[in-house]
């Protein structure tokens, strides 16, 4: 593979505490190296910012519910699809882009890795088919576990070892990455049209509560020593006053210690926390509780979060939180898709318009940004939109702009119909903090890579790391006075190099790269009870065979397998 030398850029690498020093980055055979020969291709980055490739900790980009959204929303394509680049695949869609557009757009923004945030295990082959068709970016997928009958039964009986053996089997069977929790217990209740709105609501027929599921899965995660922590979408998402249950679930992490060999310190990743930080007792009294939640997150060092910022777009909500999507369709009366998945989970999809003329949308927008601005530790606070739920991932540059510029925030705030009401219900208007490029690099690169247990590969520019490098048109010593220039710079990288190959030049795709599917294979001791339980459930409860269920190797043709032995 060719050698590349990136010269004279302002390097921002939080993993080595480098903040805008002018330096060269050398690349050889897909890795960052000390130096390269004279024949290396030289990229002049003078006056530009150089960062590691972006790492997205949570986005819905591949799989059945994403595709339901694409299928059911032709209007998401109408006048919203860009024209294809010559000799590249066609690109479709805005809030739920086609797989090709997903890969291209992430690359244009300089992202190297994206985590598909919720994989229904039964649909794992579908998820991998889509990942296969998403060019350039490395991807992994988190199977959902918190409404799974095996997990209920093992955790109810306190059988962490069996839960671990089952999860290890399932990660291998589905080529999954870690433990995703979505509305623990509530989604299983939704199979009967019910929900679990507090941590102590028992799951119908299973005699277990959300609190027990969360605690049990957190323990199982550390028993296995997985690269990523348990990744949770909490109960009671999206409702006024839910910040209390959010704090209650976060407290479950107290006293749990991370145990792994991947450099991860956290035991719980609380995702799209904007949706979980609401005060008030109705939409009329709806208000921000970002400060209360972030005060707790800031002092509780074994938790990481991502923001789930509302971007004020027409988008598509989709989640394994089935009852919530039913709730939302009753709020906005738009079309509703639902898929309950036997034994495992459910999902729903509803289009949604975050409208500047609606007070609640404005407050939600403010809450997402407040959480980022209250963050004391950007290494545990990551930028997301819960794509596409709060907005499409292509708006990350806009969020960065808002976080980096009070002026930009004030302009948006002033454009609302109910500016005063939004100001009354939030703190954003009084917040002067403007994040630095260094903090942005922590929130989009170094931080998520560490939380995912991938800090040896992504998030930094140390020698030996994966050579994924973005070069952005921003001069550290002369930052633009117009905040729009920040958004523009992050929307289209000048250059993006993925695993040592030039992918983007002047904002255009120039190669399909060498995408990898990353999955985790923990080896546990053979567990006859779990093997028997698996056979039994496939005979009785599933509508497919256990053999049919397991993802064939050819569906992930370029795998990067993180394999390790679990010490019992």
């Amino acid at each position: 593979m060719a050698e590349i030398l990136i010269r004279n850029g302002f390097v921002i690498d939080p993993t080595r505490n480098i903040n805008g020093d002018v330096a060269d980055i050398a690349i050889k055979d897909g890795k960052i190296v000390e130096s390269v020969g004279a024949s290396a291709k030289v990229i002049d980055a003078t006056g530009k910012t150089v960062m590691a490739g972006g790492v997205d900790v949570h986005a819905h980009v591949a799989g059945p519910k994403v595709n339901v959204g694409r299928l059911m929303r032709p209007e998401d394509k109408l006048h919203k699809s860009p024209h294809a680049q010559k000799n590249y695949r066609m690109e479709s869609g805005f809030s739920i882009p086609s797989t090709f557009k997903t890969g291209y757009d992430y690359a244009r923004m300089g992202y190297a890795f994206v985590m598909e945030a919720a994989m229904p295990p039964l649909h794992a082959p579908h998820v991998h088919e889509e990942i296969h068709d998403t060019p350039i970016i490395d991807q992994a997928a988190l199977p959902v576990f918190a409404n799974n009958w095996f997990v209920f039964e093992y955790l109810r009986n306190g059988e962490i070892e069996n839960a671990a053996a089952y999860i290890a089997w399932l990660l291998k069977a589905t080529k999954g990455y870690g433990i995703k929790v979505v509305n623990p217990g509530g989604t299983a209740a939704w199979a009967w049209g019910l929900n679990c709105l507090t941590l102590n609501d028992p799951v119908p027929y299973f005699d277990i509560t959300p609190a027990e599921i969360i605690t049990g899965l957190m323990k199982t995660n550390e028993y296995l020593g997985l690269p990523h922590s348990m990744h949770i979408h909490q109960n009671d998402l999206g409702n006024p006053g839910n910040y209390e249950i959010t704090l209650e679930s976060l407290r479950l992490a107290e006293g749990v210690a991370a145990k792994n060999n991947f450099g991860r310190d956290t035991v719980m990743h609380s995702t799209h926390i904007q949706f979980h930080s609401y005060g008030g007792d109705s939409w009329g009294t709806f208000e921000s509780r970002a400060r209360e939640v972030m005060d707790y997150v800031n002092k509780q060092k074994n938790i990481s979060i991502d923001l789930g910022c509302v971007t004020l777009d027409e988008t598509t909500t989709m989640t394994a939180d089935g009852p919530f999507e039913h709730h939302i369709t009753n709020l906005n009366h738009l079309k509703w898709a639902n898929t309950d998945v036997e034994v495992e989970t459910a999902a729903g999809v509803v289009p949604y318009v975050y409208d500047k003329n609606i007070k609640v949308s404005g407050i939600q927008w403010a809450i997402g940004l407040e959480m980022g601005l209250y963050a004391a530790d950007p290494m545990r606070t990551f930028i997301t939109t819960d794509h596409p739920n709060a907005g499409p991932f292509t708006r990350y540059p806009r969020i960065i702009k808002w976080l980096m510029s009070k002026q930009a925030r004030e302009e948006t705030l002033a454009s609302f119909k109910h500016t005063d009401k939004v100001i009354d219900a939030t703190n954003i208007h009084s917040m002067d903090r403007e994040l630095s490029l260094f903090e942005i690099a922590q929130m989009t690169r170094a931080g998520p890579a560490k939380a995912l247990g991938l800090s040896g590969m992504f998030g930094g520019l140390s020698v030996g790391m994966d050579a994924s490098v973005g070069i952005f048109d921003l001069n550290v010593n002369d930052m633009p006075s117009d905040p729009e220039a920040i958004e523009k710079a992050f929307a289209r990288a000048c250059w993006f190099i993925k695993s040592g190959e030039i992918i983007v030049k002047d904002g255009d795709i120039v190669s399909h790269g060498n995408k990898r599917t990353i999955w985790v294979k923990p080896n546990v001791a053979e567990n006859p009870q779990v093997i028997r339980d698996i056979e039994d459930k496939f005979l009785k409860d599933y509508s497919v065979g256990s053999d049919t269920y397991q993802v064939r190797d050819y569906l992930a043709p370029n795998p990067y397998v993180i394999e390790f032995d679990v010490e019992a």
Partner: protein
Amino acid sequence: MPKWITQVGCPYCGASCDDLEVLVSDDGKRVLETRNACAIGNEIFHHAQSPSRPKLPRMRQPDGSMKEVSYDEAIDYTAKTLLAAKKPLIYGFGSTNCEGMSAVARVAEKGGAVLDNCASICHGPSFLAIFDNGYPSCTLGEAKNRADVVVFWGCNPMHAHPRHTSRYSIFPRGTFTAKGQMTRTIICVDPRETDTAKLADHHLMVKQGHDYDLFDAFRTVLRGHDIPDEVAGIPKKTILDAAKVMKNARFVMIFFGMGCTHTDGRNHNVDIAISLTRDLNAHTKASIMAMRGHYNIAGPGQVWSWQFGFPYCIDLSKGTHAHMNPGETSSIDLAMRGEIDCFVNVGTDAGAHFPIRAVEQLKKHPFITVDPNICMASEISDLHIPVRVVGVEEPGVVYRMDNVPIQFKKVVDGPEGVPSDEELFDRVYERMCELTETEPIWLLAKDHAKAATNAEQ
């Protein structure tokens, strides 16, 4: 010793059973026996062995006869014909795997074709309803495990999906339906007394073409309003009784078929069926599912939605972006208007299924069929290219009617030299690239399958 292969997928109907067992000969070349398959599924496995199966492409000659030609020649003809055409139509895909659909999509994009599938003449109206009203559904295992009221509306699985009722909907013992059929109340809405209707506890013999009225009556009753003494030929009391059964159920499962999509009202019938499902969810849990016909006809809707954003009627002829507008870009309408100047029929039989006037229009231009077997379309084609039979000789992913991906197996080798749909269309694509002197677009280098790397621990 002959060997039983288990958990084999069945390439027949949308129930996509994956519990077949197939006995293959010592040399792994012949299917001797099948277990668990329905009569039709069984026949597909045996028919694949037929010595009369074509093993080379056949090209129409000036005198009207068909002559065997090499695959290279057939591929060259297909590539050139697609490139020469202004608006080619590539249609079919009920009976192939997703790998094949993906390969065809690449060809269609290159050739500026219209890409459409059998839904266009089948569950297309359901798509229109889904675009407007969504799709509150579930997997078939949910129906098996929970549904205590099952509604079959305008569908007859006893004939069209022979094992549907035993695997998913009427007879099986599920987790919360431990007594099988005894746990379930079956409602059948059909103008005929079908074999499914005979199994029902309530058969509502709806007046033909009046499905919408009856759906509306159910919604009206569920919302607490009065209805006339008779709606759609059904007495008020019968409707009230059936509505009560649904309202008092723990889990209502509604299956609908061509009787909704191809009778008066079409997409409006499906639309209101979805609304009825939404309404029922205010009282209990309810789900709805289209009875998709072929084992992988849900596949193109999935593959093309993630590739182009649309499930069917995809016009790629603009070259820059995909465009869907059923009525304008749907196969029959395009054909009837004489807009198509090259037709490729893949894994279906447009000759048997299209209206004769549409076929007459298509026949004015090159007409190519890609299918393992002789069918009406192959016999009127200018070129017939045989391929391997998915599920028998070729593995791959298929999507069951509930959009669950099922990984089909191969049980025997295909005839020597006969490619899969995927291989065939990849070769057509490469030939098109040669002819246009362009670089082929592969997302992943083809040899990556072997390049598995392991993290160092």
